[in-house]
């Protein structure tokens, strides 16, 4: 029984933390969110040199061949720094899908470029309903032609490659500039995000041989990676609140000495520590192929979605007026948590899933007992 990270995993986390702290600190974030692309391509390329994009990609395709635990460690750092860039879309979503659904030739063509930082990609999944449910999809992929409308597609405007998930989990890839694809960026309340509505009007896509199983795998990994990113945002918000409570004085004493504030900070730690356990248990379960891996992914996403919302929101309350200003950094973390809270299944969506997976597991165990 070992819930600790290995030395290599700690080193990887430290590497990501050190790099993002230096190259993607908040003043730089403030600069890149003002650009149309919304991220710094040079920083992206250097992340590739460090190997961060290659973490979950197999070594034979130029990656580091690591698991979900390592990816979650880096996602937590991305949340902690509110890093703006197509990491989630390219590495968590697209690389996972290509690895599980692509042909050998497609993997050889795309994965090494993702790993090196030379290619960005995204996955067009949600339609009218943002739920991560394949049965809701109506986009068609037939005879290599894609028709349909996708919403909330992350970093679609800059992506070199768009992977589309169609009806029943069918898959096609479209390279940037293919005709019949229109990308319309939508502005969200989070300046660090670049979502778009993408319309496919008979566009010629390259079909990926894999299907539903690969999509389901990606959805599980997205839920856990989003949990890790929200955890990072929450932990940073908590740390800022604790630091502020120690120095900000009112009524002649630090506000952290007042129980009303102290108890909010204590509740933040309660939420963060349990979000941590939920996130890394789920990441480990996916890597280990544990029988409860699907359940754990939904447990984590339902739990962390609400925890991070509370922690990041309470952080604004602890800071008072300054926390409500654009100039203060907290809102980046508050918005980052909110972004992932409602994507890849919100808390209610995953609670229903927990209920279903749990009852199915109980039934299976009962049957096993009867047969034994």
């Amino acid at each position, binding site marked *: 029984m070992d*819930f600790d990270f290995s030395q290599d995993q700690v080193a990887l986390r430290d590497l990501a933390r050190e790099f993002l702290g230096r190259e993607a600190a908040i003043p730089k974030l403030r600069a890149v969110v003002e650009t149309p692309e919304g991220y710094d391509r040079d920083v992206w390329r250097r992340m590739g040199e460090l190997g961060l994009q290659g973490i979950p990609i197999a070594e034979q395709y130029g990656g580091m061949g690591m698991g979900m635990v390592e990816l979650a460690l880096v996602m937590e750092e991305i949340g902690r720094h509110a890093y703006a860039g197509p990491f989630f879309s390219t590495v968590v979503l697209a690389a996972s899908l290509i690895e599980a659904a692509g042909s050998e030739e497609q993997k050889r063509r795309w994965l090494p470029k993702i790993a090196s930082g030379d290619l960005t990609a995204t996955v067009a999944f949600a339609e009218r309903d943002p739920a991560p449910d394949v049965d809701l999809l109506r986009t068609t992929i037939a005879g290599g032609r894609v028709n349909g409308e996708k919403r909330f597609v992350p970093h679609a405007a800059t992506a070199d490659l768009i992977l589309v998930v169609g009806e029943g989990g069918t898959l096609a890839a479209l390279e940037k500039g293919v005709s019949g694809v229109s990308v319309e960026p939508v502005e969200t309340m989070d300046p660090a995000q670049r979502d778009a509505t993408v319309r496919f009007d008979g566009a010629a896509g390259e079909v990926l041989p894999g299907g539903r199983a690969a999509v389901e795998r990606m959805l599980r990994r997205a839920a856990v990676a989003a949990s890790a990113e929200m955890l990072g945002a929450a932990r940073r918000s908590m740390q800022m609140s604790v630091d502020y409570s*120690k120095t900000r004085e009112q009524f002649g004493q630090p506000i952290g000495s007042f129980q009303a504030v102290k108890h909010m900070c204590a509740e933040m730690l309660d939420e963060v*520590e349990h979000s941590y356990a939920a996130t890394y248990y789920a990441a480990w379960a996916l890597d280990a192929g544990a029988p409860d891996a699907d359940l754990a992914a939904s*447990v984590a996403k339902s739990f962390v979605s609400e925890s991070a919302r509370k922690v990041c929101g309470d952080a604004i309350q602890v800071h008072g007026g300054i926390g409500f200003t654009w100039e203060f950094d907290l809102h980046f973390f508050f918005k980052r948590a909110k972004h992932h809270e409602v994507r890849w299944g919100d808390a209610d969506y995953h609670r229903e899933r927990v209920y279903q997976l749990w009852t199915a597991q109980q039934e299976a165990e009962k049957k096993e007992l009867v047969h034994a």
Partner: protein
Amino acid sequence: MDLRYTPEDEKFRAEVRAWFEANVPRKPLQTLEERRAWHRKLYEAGFVGMGWPKEYGGRDARPMEQAIVAEEMARVGAPGTINGLGISICGPTLIAHGTEWQKQRYLKNILTADEIWCQLYSEPNAGSDLASLKTSAVKENGHFVVNGQKVWTSGGMIADLGILLARTDPTVPKHQGISYFVMDMHAPGVDVRPIKQITGSQEFCEVFMTNVKIPAENLIGELGQGWRLAQTTLGFERGGNTLSRATRARGNLNRLIEVAQRVDRNGRPAAEDPAIRRKIGRMLAETEVLRYTGLRILSKLEKGQRPGPESSVDKLYYSEMDKRHQELMQEILGPYGQLEDLPPELALRGENQEGLDGSWAYNFLWARAGTIYAGSSQIQKNIIGERVLGLPREVRADRLSRE
């Protein structure tokens, strides 16, 4: 990171499971003698004081072994030992701080439950602020004379001995004037009165002490060391508490899921209402997170690390979670949840079910205690804020007056 149990762990679990399945009482234990007999059976099977050092009758069991036994007990709803405070607090305190005579005199009988122990700490005016306690112990001719009142004494009615915090020096700052004693609950001048709780049952008592004589050899540690001893009591029974809580909560939720298919709400079985399913899904998720946290704690203990003030985070989480879950179960069951007697298909424990007594209503009411005893949630938040996060301590009237 590896959260699997080893084959040895699994083998041990299978043995423990077989033992409990064969031996767990088929009916709720009613009398003290029945409970004592069950305790004896646990003791003889080696499941009592597992974490105690071998030289004092324990097994030096690893946290993992303790956790497995605690989980398997929770799985079948097995009643606990009858001497929980003796085993988890009184005994370990004596092992750490007692004289050789005290150890020889008391320890074995704690394990066998030939003597049952209670804890005499809280007073009517010393709850969260325990160090302000007023019960006095005055030294006279080779013994101490004790006067005062204790309250919320769990198991006081059946206890033979108690560990007592009493003030031996009223002239020094409050934390320094307290000493730690073993008190004979049958001694003249000890008056134990049960307190009826909101559950209707009587688990705790108030204890009045009028000129009770305690022999000087029953002082534990040095005079004035009582507060420090009470704060540093080192338990040997570790590893399993959080996991067994999660196991018990899982069992209750599995039962809730069955009952929710039979109880109608708003014109259909409760389990078919999406709003109710989400409530159950939330409880399942939060209970799983408790289990993951239990594994995290166990991983630390197995490496010989001791959880420090962060155990306050664990206590805060599970006690608040239980209170919240009991509220949600009441919402789901509606008025059925309030009934004292339910038909077996709706009861928390169905017919012919082994193990602990208990009802939806009892558990709901009992959950209110969890966020009060052993340091209320507000005290836990102070501990987390000050000792874990390093926030400044608040200005307190009792400290100002001392300065």
